[in-house]
C-alpha cells in the first residue's frame, strides 16, 4: 500500500486537450462525424416529435455493439472485470462477438502498493450471495477469512452480533497480494481472481498504462505509455477514484465531473494466524467511539494480518493515534496495545456521485462514477458494472442509452446514499451521547442473549455495519413502532442507576 494520494499505476500524461472555448459536451469534430450526436442535435433544433424519435432511433441503431465492435475497459479492478464478464456473457447470448481489451498494468501478485487497490477488502454479505446466484463463486484461495459476526465496541461495553444462520457470508480478502514486505501469500487476490474470470470469458488483458484519451471520428483513441495507440467504439472508465486519469477525462469536453471524495485510513497489523484466531476469531470488530471527526472504524481479521479501516471527516495521524490508544481498541489486541503497522495508506473514497457518468460511447463505472456511501464499495462496483454491461449489450452505447438505462441504477444508489447520510448522522449522535449508547447496547445484548427476541436493533446495526441492505430499508425498519417502543424503553431502563452487575459495563459474546 502507498502512503497517500494518487494511483501511480494509472497516471495519465498531460497531452494536449480540447482548446479553450470548445463545446462543453462534444468536440467540433465529433459533432459532424458522430452520427448519434448529430442526430440528437438536429432533433433539438427542428422537426416534429415523431421525426425526432425517428432520428433518435436511427442514431441509436448506429451506436449499438455489433460483431467486431471494439471495447476498451480502463482499469482491471472489480468494476472493470465484472463489466467485462457480464458484457461478454450477455453478448454471447445474443450471438455478438466483440473485441474487449482490459487495460490494467498491475499483476496484483506483488505485495505492497504496486499490487494493491487501497481498500479494506470486505466483500459484503449481500454481494457474496448475489455473486453466488450469478454463478460467480469466491473460491477458498481468494478468501483470507470468512466472517460470521460483528463485535461492536463502545465505551459502555461490547456485544457480538451473529448472523441468524451462524454462517460465514462475508469475505475478508486482499485486493492485491498482501501488505508491504509480507511473504508471498498462498491466496489469490480478489482483483486478480476477477480479472482472470473476465479473461476466461474472452477479454484481452493489456498490461499497459493508459496515458491519454481523445475523441476520434468513430469513437475514442487511447494512447498508452509505450507510445502505442488504439481506437475503440466504447470506452469504459473503471480506474477508481484515486487515478489521475479521471482528471484527464474532465478535459475531454464531456459533462462528466469527478465524484466528491474523502480521505480515509487503512493499515495492516501483523499478528499471525494463530493469534488472530484466538483474539479476533471470525468477527469483524467495529467501534462506536466518541472521537471527533470519526464516522466509523473497523478491525478486519484476515490471514496473518488485521486490517484497520477508518472513515471520517479528513482522517489524520492525530485521530489515528487517538483511536489506537483508546482503551476499547487496545483491549482488542494482545498485550493490550496495537503493534506497529506493517503497511498503511490514506486513500480517498467516493462520497458523492460523479456528474453525468456517461457520454457518447463512454461510461464511468465503480468508484469513478457512483458508489454507496461509506460501505460496500465492491458491491456498488458490481451494481454499476452490471447495469452498464446490460445497457451496452441490450440497448446501445449512445449517451441517450446510458441516460435511459444506466443512469437509473446510479440514481438508485445516489438516492439511497441521501438516506444513508441521515443514518450516519444518527450514528454520530449515538456515538456522542452516552445515554443513547447505553440504550443501544442494552437492546442488542438482550436480543442476542434472550431466545425468541426479534433482533430489531441487531439487524439494523448489522446492515449499517455490513452495508448489506439499502439504507432506505434500514431507515424504514427503525420507524417500526415496535423498534421505537423498545428503544424508548431501553433509553429509560439502561440509564437507571445500576442495581445489577449486568447493568454496568456489559460484555456479551
Amino acid at each position: 500500500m502507498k502512503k497517500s494520494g494518487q494511483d501511480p499505476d494509472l497516471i495519465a500524461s498531460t497531452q494536449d486537450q480540447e482548446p479553450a472555448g470548445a463545446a462543453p459536451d462534444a468536440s467540433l469534430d465529433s459533432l459532424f462525424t458522430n452520427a448519434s450526436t448529430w442526430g440528437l442535435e438536429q432533433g433539438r433544433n427542428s422537426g416534429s416529435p415523431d421525426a425526432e424519435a425517428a432520428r433518435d432511433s436511427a442514431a441509436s441503431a448506429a451506436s449499438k455493439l455489433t460483431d467486431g465492435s471494439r471495447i476498451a475497459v480502463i482499469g482491471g479492478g472489480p468494476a472493470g472485470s465484472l463489466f467485462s464478464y457480464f458484457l461478454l456473457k450477455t453478448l454471447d447470448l445474443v450471438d455478438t462477438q466483440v473485441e474487449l481489451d482490459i487495460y490494467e498494468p498491475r499483476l496484483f501478485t506483488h505485495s505492497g502498493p504496486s499490487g494493491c487497490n487501497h481498500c479494506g477488502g470486505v466483500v459484503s454479505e449481500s454481494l457474496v450471495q448475489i455473486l453466488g446466484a450469478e454463478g460467480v463463486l469466491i473460491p477458498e484461495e481468494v478468501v483470507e477469512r470468512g466472517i460470521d459476526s460483528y463485535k461492536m465496541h463502545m465505551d459502555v461495553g461490547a456485544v457480538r452480533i451473529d448472523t441468524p444462520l451462524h454462517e460465514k457470508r462475508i469475505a475478508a480478502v486482499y485486493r492485491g497480494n498482501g501488505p508491504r514486505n509480507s511473504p508471498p501469500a498462498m491466496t489469490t487476490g480478489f482483483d486478480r481472481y476477477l480479472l482472470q474470470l473476465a479473461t476466461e470469458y474472452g477479454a484481452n488483458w493489456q498490461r499497459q498504462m493508459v496515458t491519454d484519451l481523445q475523441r476520434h471520428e468513430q469513437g475514442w483513441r487511447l494512447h498508452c505509455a509505450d507510445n502505442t495507440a488504439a481506437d475503440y467504439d466504447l470506452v469504459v472508465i473503471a480506474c477508481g477514484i484515486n487515478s489521475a486519469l479521471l482528471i484527464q477525462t474532465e478535459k475531454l469536453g464531456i459533462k462528466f465531473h469527478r465524484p466528491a471524495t474523502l480521505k480515509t485510513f487503512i493499515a495492516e497489523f501483523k499478528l499471525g494466524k494463530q493469534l488472530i484466531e484466538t483474539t479476533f476469531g471470525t468477527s469483524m470488530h467495529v467501534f462506536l467511539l466518541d472521537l471527533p471527526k470519526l464516522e466509523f472504524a473497523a478491525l478486519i481479521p484476515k490471514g496473518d494480518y488485521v486490517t484497520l479501516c477508518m472513515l471520517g471527516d479528513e482522517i489524520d495521524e492525530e485521530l489515528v493515534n487517538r483511536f489506537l490508544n483508546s482503551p476499547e481498541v487496545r483491549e482488542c489486541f494482545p498485550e493490550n496495545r496495537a503493534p506497529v503497522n506493517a503497511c498503511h495508506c490514506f486513500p480517498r473514497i467516493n462520497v458523492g456521485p460523479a456528474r453525468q457518468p456517461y457520454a457518447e460511447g463512454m461510461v464511468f463505472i465503480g468508484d469513478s462514477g457512483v458508489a454507496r456511501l461509506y460501505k460496500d464499495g465492491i458491491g456498488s462496483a458490481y451494481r454499476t458494472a452490471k447495469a452498464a454491461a446490460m445497457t451496452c449489450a441490450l440497448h446501445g452505447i449512445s449517451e441517450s442509452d446510458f441516460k435511459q438505462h444506466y443512469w437509473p441504477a446510479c440514481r438508485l444508489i445516489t438516492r439511497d446514499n441521501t438516506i444513508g447520510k441521515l443514518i450516519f448522522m444518527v450514528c454520530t449522535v449515538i456515538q456522542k451521547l452516552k445515554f443513547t449508547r447505553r440504550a443501544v447496547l442494552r437492546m442488542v445484548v438482550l436480543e442476542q442473549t434472550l431466545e425468541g427476541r426479534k433482533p430489531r436493533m441487531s439487524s439494523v446495526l448489522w446492515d449499517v455495519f455490513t452495508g448489506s441492505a439499502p439504507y432506505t430499508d434500514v431507515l424504514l425498519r427503525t420507524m417500526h413502532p415496535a423498534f421505537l417502543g423498545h428503544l424508548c424503553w431501553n433509553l429509560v431502563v439502561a440509564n437507571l442507576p445500576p442495581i445489577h452487575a449486568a447493568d454496568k459495563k456489559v460484555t456479551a459474546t
Partner: protein
Amino acid sequence: MINALGKVFQPGENIVTQGEVGDCMYVIQQGEAEVLKDVDGKQIRVDTMRGGDIFGEIAIVEHTTRSSTVRAITEVHAMTIDRKTFLRRVQEDPSLALNVLKVMAHRVRGLDQELAVLKQSIAASGLETG
C-alpha cells in the same frame, strides 16, 4: 477452515430436508451432495450436485415446503441465498434471475430426458408382458 465461506456439512448430514419450510436457496461452494426423494417411505437418489450447483430455488419463488432432501456425500461447503436479498436485487436487475432460470431449464431438460427413457422402458416392458 478459516477462509471457507458458507456452512460446512459433514458426509451424511442433511442440508435441506424434504417437507420442511424453506426461505432460501443454496449454492454449493465445494463438495458433493445427493438429492433424495421420499417415495412410499423409501429414499430414491434422483440427482447429485457439485461445486457451483444451485438448489432450493423453488423456495425463492414459492412459499412451499422442500420437494427433496439434499444430503452431503463428502464434506460440503454450502452458502444460503436469502429470498429477500435475491428478490430485492431481481427487482433492480431482472437479468439476475437468468442464472436461476438456466438452472431450472437444465433441470427440466434432464427430467424430460428421464421421462422419455422411463416411458420407453414401460412401453417396452408392456410389449414384453403383452
